Structures are given as C-alpha cells and as structure tokens.
C-alpha cells in the first residue's frame, strides 16, 4: 500500500525537535508540501518570519527540488538557499518502524539544516543552444524522430552505421496485428527522410567522439570509406552483377543468401549506392580484379577513398540505436549450429518475404523442400534468469510468433504448426484477438511447455518438450524449428553510453530520466531516447516514443538560451599554489592556468593560478578533492557544507 511520509515518520515530532536548533526561526509540518498549498505556506513563512534559508523535509530532491527553488524565488529568496531532506524515499518508504523512521528523519533534517547554513546565493549562467539535432540510428525510430524534428523546422543529421537506412523493420515481412507489408509502410518514410530539406543522412557512418554538453554538443562523425562516389553513382547495379567475389553472407538476408563484395544491401536501400566490402574485395585483398572500376559507366568507383571525419555542433542528441537478437548458439539444446532447419525468427522473416532469398517460398534450408510441420519455440533467451539468457520479457515475440504461425497456415493450410510457450502475452490493441484467430480460425496448436532439446530423427527434427497441461513429456516432429530469440540492445549501445555519459542498465538498455514521468529522456541533459534502445517495443510503440523524443528535442531546440548549473568549481586564488593537480583530473578540460597578480600573505606576487571555465565545468568536484591546498572548491557542495553534514549526522 502506498502511504504518506506520515505513516512511518512522526512529522510533527520532526518539526518539534528541529525548532530548538539555533538559527531555526520557524518549523512546521504540512501534508502536501509540493502542492500549491504547501508552496503558499512556504512563501508566507519566508515573509512572516523573515527567513533567509529554507529546508524542506519531503520527497527526493530529484522529484521536487526545482519546485521548491521556484517557490523560494517567488518569496524573494535566492533559489539556491533551499535544501531538501529526503525523508520519503530514503526514510519513510524504507523503514517500517515509526520510532526508527522518526529518529532518522530528524537526523536527516539536522544534516540539511547544517548544510543550508552554509549555502550561498548562486546565479545560473546562460549558454546558447545550437539549433540542430543529431539522431543516432536510421531505423524506424531514428527516422520518425528525425522527420518530426525536421518538420518542426530544425536541422537534423542522422547517422547510420550500415550502408542504408531502414534498420530492422526493412527486414520484416508483415507486421502484426494488421498484417500490412513492412517494407510498404517503411520505405515511404525512408524516402521522406532522404528528401527532406532539413535532414542530412550519413550512412555507413559512426559516432567517433562527442564533447560538450546540452545545447552545445560537438560530435565527430566517422564516414567510413564506401569506395564509391555517392554523387556520381547512378545505382545501375552493373558492378554488383559483374563482381566475381560473391561469397559473402548477406547481412540483410540474415546470411540466407550470399552477396557480392560490392553491394547494395537491399533493393529499396537509401542511398541506392553500393559499398565495397573491403574484406571480400579481390582488389583490396589481392590487388587483382578491379573490374567494377573498369565497367562503371559513371566512373564512380574510388578504391583510394578514405574514411572522412566530419565535425558538427548539435543542441540535442537522440539515441535510436535499436536492437539485435540474442545469438541462438548460446542455447546448445536447440542445435542451431548442427541442424540447418533450426532457424531464428528473423531468418524466418526473410524466408517468408517475397523479396527474400526464396521469393517468399517457405522451404527447408537443408533440402529446399516444403516442410510438412513447423515448431515455433518462444522465449529463447527471454525470461531466462541463467547467465546465458536475459531475465526480461522481450515483449514482441509472442505476437510475431503468432503472426508467423498464422501466415504459414494462411499460405499452406496443410502444414502442421505447433507453438511451445511459457505464457502467451498479448496486451495491445487487437493483439489478443489476433493470437486467438491463429488458434481458433487457423488451427495453430499452442502447447504450454518448455523445449528441452531438438534432435535429428528420421531425416527430420524431433522437438523434445514438456506439455504442462497434460503433465507429460512429448516429442513433436518438425521439419522446421523456429526460435523466437530474445531482443537485445545493439552491440554498440554501451560504447555510445560511455561516450555520451548516458546511463545504461545491466542489460545494456538506456535508462530513462524517470521511468514514469520522463520516459524518453536520458538523465543526461540533452540526450533523448527513441525506440527499442530504451527497452523492447513493437513498431507502433516505437513510433510513438520516437515522436515523443522528437517533441522533447524540439522543446530544447526552440530555446535560445539555457540556464547553466551554477554549482561549479571555483578557485581561491590566494591559496592556489598553481600545482595544477586539478587540471589533470578534469574530464572537461575546464581548468586552465594563468599568471596572475595575487596577494599572498601580505605580499603581492605574480604566479600561476588555476582558472575554471564555468561554461565547461559540469560540477563533478574531482578537482576539489585533487587539490592539495584546498583552494579548489565546489559551489553547492563545498568542503564546508559536506563536512557540516557529516558533523550533523555523526
């Protein structure tokens, strides 16, 4: 049951016991401090009692610090003369005994009072906003975000690491539950983005480095060498046809087909310009061939092309790095490596896609014949608390498995289709109806039970599983086994997170600033989250979140100036010895050194003094600890303030 602070903390007693502390002019309790009433009370108290500092004992400062600072400002006080004692999340909500809770709340209040005594008025500076956004990832999430930002009139750059935009959605066949063709709804968006005057797309590009901060990010983008001149290539495709090296596995087709060394990943790719896979190309590997350069009618082949580094400034950055799926090799029991006819759901998508390697004909990979029976296995690697799997639910697998099963039955009613599942989870508009249709109308057989192993038997496969309803073990024959592998964040999510100082969880999904109230923002100001990189999502949810991320980015870009954090480092020039230990630990290069005239023990002398660039300083405080003379301190979290808190608590 959710309760108020007062359930486990005697708030009247907290007020009572701090009242007698020297300098405390007024203390009271109130039920809803963050409400309008609470703020009025605060303003009145400041006026009536001539208060010069405020301590609010309430919920986490992460929730309402800004609210109370605003109220202080309205009462004519500097907003930084407010401190919050967190007696909700850190006290009332975690301690059940009222005596214990009250005692701790009093201690926390005393610490905040000790600190606030030493607070000084601070004024936030201003920093300009670059009116341009960077979107990382060119899948449906990134495209939607970019389009929305561009439509609002701001410039957007998209970087996509693969040779074409489109992402995972481009690989899919149909989408649930409406069964519209994935490519048919995605490609117009790709074209829109490519044609938009406010959007610049950098494909085959990666983020190299980011510096700066909200409103003023500076990004270095590495445009990998395509070996083909984008402006000259007409996309005729002659080079791909003639290329003698055709053994590379097609990434787009999940390795179900091979491609040439010079290739365009798929027919509707944007840009429709090939790239040379240098690992596969004979010219690069053995200095032979060179055929494509000879035959290209536009003379667009450039073997000598090098990676290009582009540096740009951005006000906002949106992460839309999407997902990949867990490697089924981890789950040896399914025999993915040993049986050709054990495939993943994404491979199945390519197999049933009319533009796929079999033109949509469903065949066994082992012999090219039509399968007579198919078994789908859900939760491969999802809801798996062992080391090898992921503990979360991948959310989309139940629905796409139902989609696959239904599509098979629709095209080939004679194929027997079984689905093994732990639970069927189908919340969503039209989702449950869809899954039921697969069962009731199309005769897909759903069996609740886990699959133990897949073996080869009599030329086909045997799926050994439990049937929970019947309480027995069963062996199901299958010509094809399809594994619904868990959704996992893109492999470079963690690298990007550290580059951008964006938070990431233990599963490598980006963390939002608040799970309920700020779901599309990273805790790092100016970084926004779009799509599956934040957590598993289906397409409509991804699009909705992409739009929300765009709105947040637009909100930022529409401002001319941002208020900066005034809690930054500052130097006491008379005690600074100029050793510059501070400079070495500053992650932002915010500390420089200048020769200055200073007063040292009554003598005037000119010496080296550290200097803090307040616009660059982010207020971590590393320098204040590194400083041997204590000359470097941090506003808002000064040595004296923290020491006062320690003294109050101990």
């Amino acid at each position, binding site marked *: 049951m959710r309760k108020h602070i007062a359930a486990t903390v005697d708030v009247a007693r907290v007020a009572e016991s701090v009242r007698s502390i020297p300098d405390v002019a007024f203390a009271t309790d109130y039920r809803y401090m963050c409400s309008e009433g609470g703020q009025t009370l605060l303003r009145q108290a400041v006026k009536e009692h001539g208060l010069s500092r405020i301590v609010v004992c309430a919920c986490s400062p*992460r929730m309402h610090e800004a609210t109370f600072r605003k109220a202080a400002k309205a009462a004519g006080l500097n907003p930084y003369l407010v401190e919050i004692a*967190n007696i909700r*999340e850190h006290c009332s909500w975690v*301690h059940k005994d009222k005596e214990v809770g009250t005692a701790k709340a009093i201690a926390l209040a005393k610490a905040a009072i000790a600190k606030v005594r030493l607070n000084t008025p601070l004024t936030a500076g201003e920093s300009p906003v670059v009116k341009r956004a960077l979107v990382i990832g060119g899948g449906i999430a990134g495209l939607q975000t970019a389009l929305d930002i561009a439509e609002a009139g701001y410039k957007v750059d998209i970087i996509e690491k693969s040779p074409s935009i489109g992402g995972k959605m481009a690989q899919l066949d149909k989408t649930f539950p409406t069964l519209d063709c994935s490519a048919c709804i995605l490609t117009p968006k790709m074209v829109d983005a490519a044609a938009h005057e406010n959007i610049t797309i950098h494909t085959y590009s990666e983020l190299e480095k980011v510096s700066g901060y909200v409103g003023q990010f500076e990004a270095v983008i590495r445009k990998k060498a395509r070996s083909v001149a984008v402006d000259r290539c007409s996309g005729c495709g002659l080079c791909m046809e003639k290329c003698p090296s055709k053994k590379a596995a097609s990434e787009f087709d999940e390795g179900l087909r091979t491609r040439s060394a010079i290739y365009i990943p798929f027919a509707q790719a944007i840009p429709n310009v090939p790239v040379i896979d240098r690992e596969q190309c004979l010219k690069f590997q053995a200095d032979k061939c060179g055929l494509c350069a000879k035959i290209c009618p536009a003379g667009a082949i450039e073997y000598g092309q090098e990676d290009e580094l582009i540096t740009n400034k951005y006000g906002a950055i949106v992460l839309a790095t999407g997902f990949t799926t867990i490697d089924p090799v981890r789950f040896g029991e399914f025999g993915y490596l040993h049986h050709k006819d054990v495939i993943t759901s994404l491979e199945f998508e390519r197999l049933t896609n009319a533009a796929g390697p079999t033109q949509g004909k469903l065949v066994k990979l082992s012999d090219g014949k039509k399968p007579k029976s198919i078994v789908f296995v859900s939760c491969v690697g999802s809801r798996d608390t062992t080391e090898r799997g992921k503990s979360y639910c991948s959310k989309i697998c139940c629905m796409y498995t139902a989609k696959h099963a239904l599509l098979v039955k629709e095209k080939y009613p004679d194929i027997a289709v079984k689905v093994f599942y732990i639970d069927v989870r189908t919340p969503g508009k039209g989702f449950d109806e869809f899954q039921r249709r697969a069962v009731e109308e199309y005769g897909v057989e759903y069996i609740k039970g886990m699959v133990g192993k897949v073996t080869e038997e009599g030329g086909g496969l045997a799926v050994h599983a439990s049937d929970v309803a019947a309480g027995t073990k069963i062996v199901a024959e299958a010509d094809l086994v399809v594994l619904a592998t868990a959704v996992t964040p893109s492999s470079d999510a963690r690298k990007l997170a*550290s580059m951008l*100082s964006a*938070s990431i969880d233990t599963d490598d999904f980006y963390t939002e600033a608040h799970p309920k109230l700020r779901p599309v923002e990273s805790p790092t100001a100016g970084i926004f989250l779009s799509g599956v990189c934040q957590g598993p999502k289906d397409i409509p949810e991804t699009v909705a979140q992409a739009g929300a991320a765009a709105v947040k980015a637009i909100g930022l870009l529409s401002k001319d100036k941002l208020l900066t954090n005034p809690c930054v480092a500052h130097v006491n020039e008379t005690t600074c010895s100029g050793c510059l230990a501070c400079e070495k630990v500053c992650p932002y290069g915010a500390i420089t050194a200048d020769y200055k005239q200073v007063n040292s023990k009554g003598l005037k002398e000119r010496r080296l003094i550290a200097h803090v660039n307040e616009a660059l300083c982010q207020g971590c405080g590393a320098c204040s600890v590194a400083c041997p003379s204590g000359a470097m301190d941090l506003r808002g979290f000064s040595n004296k303030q923290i020491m006062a*808190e320690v003294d109050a608590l101990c």
Partner: protein
Amino acid sequence: MLAEKQSTEQNFEPLIVAFCCNWCSYAGADLAGTARRSYPANVKIIKVPCSCRVNPTFILRAFLRGADGVIIAGCHPGDCHYTTGNYFTRRRMTLLMGLLGYLGVDKARLRVEWVSAAEGNKFAEVMTDFAGTIKALGENVKLRDLRCK
C-alpha cells in the same frame, strides 16, 4: 558481566554514513524507496554530485566523530556521469583503506560499491549487508576523537 556485554552488543546500533553520487546511487536509493525495499535505518545518506567529490577527509572526519562505517556508492565503472570520476574514487579509496589499516581501523568499515540508478534492489541489499558487517565489527573505538562531540 559477559551477558551484559553481549546484550549491549546485540543492541548496538551502528552509525553509518553513505555518500551517494547524484546520478546513479542516489537515484538507486530513491528507487529502493519507491519499490519499498527496506534496509537498516542506520544508513544515512549524504548526496554528492559524483563519487569523486568525496574527499578522504570527509571520511576520516566521520570516523573521528564516531561513525562506525562509511560507504561510498557511485556509478558502475565506465558509467560515471562525469566519465572518469569513479576511477578516481576507486584509486583514492584503495589508498585510504591502506591508511585505515595502518591506523588500526578495520578497513571493512569503509566500503565502495557501484549501484546504478536502476538497481534499487541492489542498493537495499548492499546497505543491509554493510550494516550487518558493521554490526558484527562492533563499535568504532579506534579513531573516535572524544573531543569531536
């Protein structure tokens, strides 16, 4: 006599100061609260912008004033909001632990933990475990400066 000593030992409520960085661990503590994951009330949190803001003197001061345990919680290595702050924390605290050992203070009284904003459960577990350790270690008598109070 012995029985009396044992009973005071059982009633011993240690004083524990937790320095939590604003971006990960303080938020983790908030999440522990939101999820009602309880931990001993002996733990009192001081917010710092980054774990690297914790000056070893704050810790020594806490011990002098009678704290029985001090714990510093920051973002996981590599995840510091300020990129490198917790690396400094890690090195500084390793040195400080050596110094504490030299001073005759059990270095288990000082702990460094990485707790992310998403790890409310871990926050509660870590604090419960640390409080247990400190309770078992008993009162911090070695560094306590009686004039401090």
